């Protein structure tokens, strides 16, 4: 079994977001970076599967060197080796093309991703990669079991859940409760230092989309408090003032 797990390097969920350079760049000052939470689920399930079936697990990140600590963390959690495509990706198509390029060279059985990145929240990279490779893609996947080369998948659909079986290779966007997040142990951290992290240059490709300027939402007006005794008047305000009823 050859598994590829694609991780993002993103501001922590609770990070305060602001911008610099005339609102063209994220202000990284004081922002803590993490492996994307959904990618962390993908990684955790990938490590479990590798431990059960044997084989190798590679982590892949398309991004710059400041992501190396997160890549090392993924190695400490149980990946065998890592590849970083040295680019600053701002466009889903570009990112997907880089991942597909690496995947074509190594023919993985299973490519695991997060359901979405928490910086761009696009939820499209797995579909793009799947089509680029001519392989089925499913998301969001809450359960993944393997029996030889047959995968049983449970995934969320609008208002419910669908279970399906399909043969590898596959590209999957993962979410909880597919696995429990894993915390690196001391031995993992020690061995991660010497595991290979290969840095490769991106394949040439024009970016299809490019962010130009960032803005913050308009500040919220003060919350109008309604006395509990007078709760019923809320309904009238929602109708006549907020006009949402």
């Amino acid at each position, binding site marked *: 079994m050859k598994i590829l797990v694609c991780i993002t390097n993103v501001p922590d969920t609770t990070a305060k977001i602001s911008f610099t350079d005339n609102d063209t760049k994220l202000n990284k000052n004081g922002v803590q970076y993490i492996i994307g939470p959904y990618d962390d689920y993908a990684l955790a399930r990938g490590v479990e599967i590798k431990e059960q079936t044997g084989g190798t697990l590679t982590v892949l990140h398309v991004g710059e060197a400041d992501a190396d600590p997160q890549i090392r963390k993924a190695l400490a959690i149980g990946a065998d080796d890592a590849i970083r495509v040295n680019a600053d990706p701002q466009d889903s198509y570009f990112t997907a093309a880089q991942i597909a390029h690496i995947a074509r060279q190594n023919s993985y059985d299973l490519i695991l991703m997060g359901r979405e990145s928490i910086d761009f929240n696009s939820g499209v990279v797995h579909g793009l990669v799947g089509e680029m490779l001519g392989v089925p893609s499913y998301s969001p996947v809450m359960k993944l079991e393997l029996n030889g080369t047959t995968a049983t998948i449970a995934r969320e*659909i609008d208002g419910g859940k669908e279970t399906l079986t399909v043969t590898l290779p596959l590209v999957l966007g993962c979410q909880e409760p597919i696995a429990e997040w894993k915390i690196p142990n001391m031995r993992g951290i020690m061995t991660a230092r010497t595991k290979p992290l290969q840095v490769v240059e991106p394949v040439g490709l024009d970016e299809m989309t490019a962010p130009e300027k960032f803005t913050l939402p308009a500040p919220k007006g003060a919350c109008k408090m309604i006395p509990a005794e007078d709760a019923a008047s809320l309904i009238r305000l929602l109708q006549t003032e907020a006009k949402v009823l």
Partner: protein
Amino acid sequence: MSVLIFVELDNGNIKKTSLEAIAYGASVASQTGSTATVLAIGQADNSELEKAGHYGASKVLHASDEHLAHENALAYSDVLFQAATKEGSKIIILSKSGLGDAVAARAAARLKAGVVSGVTELPQIDGAFKVTRSIYTGKAFATTEIKSDVKVLVIRKNAIEVDEAAISGSAAIVETFASSRRDSDYQAQVTNVEKASSELSLTEADIIVSGGRGMKGADHWQPLLDLASALGAATGCSKPVSDLDWRPHHEHIGQTGIKVAPNLYIACGISGAIQHLAGVNGSKCIVVINKDPEAPFFKAADYGIVGDVFEILPKLTEAAKALR
């Protein structure tokens, strides 16, 4: 050259979010001097599909082959690709959902198109084609230029204001769209589908009543359900609530759950942790009911009531019933 809009059907009806996508696509079409064509996949009556005309579409391509009856993102993306190629469409619009994102992504890969998901407004078109999208889980927006020849936009709920009262336009012409079938899209065997069919879907709902740990337990949900039914609202919950199995997992809203953008979100006994807010910050109006005046959710709210949910909910239900 028409703008192509992919719509989703629910039991033969065009979903509300898809009607918004049609209105959005029609507006882009008028900005660019072209027409709006809708692609509908699955079973639906002509009388329903003609409605697309009221929202500004001139034509509906209806792909209703038997093998397309079960929702299949792989096959649907192929049909979208075929329709876009036949129509010569350079701009493709979908509404944001699990299906929408998957279909958009796979079609974009084949069309060599830039794809932007989470678009919140109509595009600015002046030489360059720019859209605004939600990023960092609702904490910011990015104005993004789409440079590719073919452009795929996945729009969020409320990206365009649709005034239902002002809806006019004539019926759209409905044409059968005969598509070819790729066998590779049918490798998977769907073994089970659990769908609460009577439920109003959270992503579609205009009003959501949502409960947190302050609701105390699965047996105490009735007052919340009563308010939801009086308002015609869908119901949601916080993550601990679904973790505790008080409510089903697909109702859980937030960072790791579903992201919603209703006109009205009523939070009952939810503290307002940042991970929960991440799923609701697209809402137009937020009401918070919490016994703790210091609950962080009040900072994100438009209206707040400090008090016990079990006393307040019945009062609201009564007032809501009186509206009808």
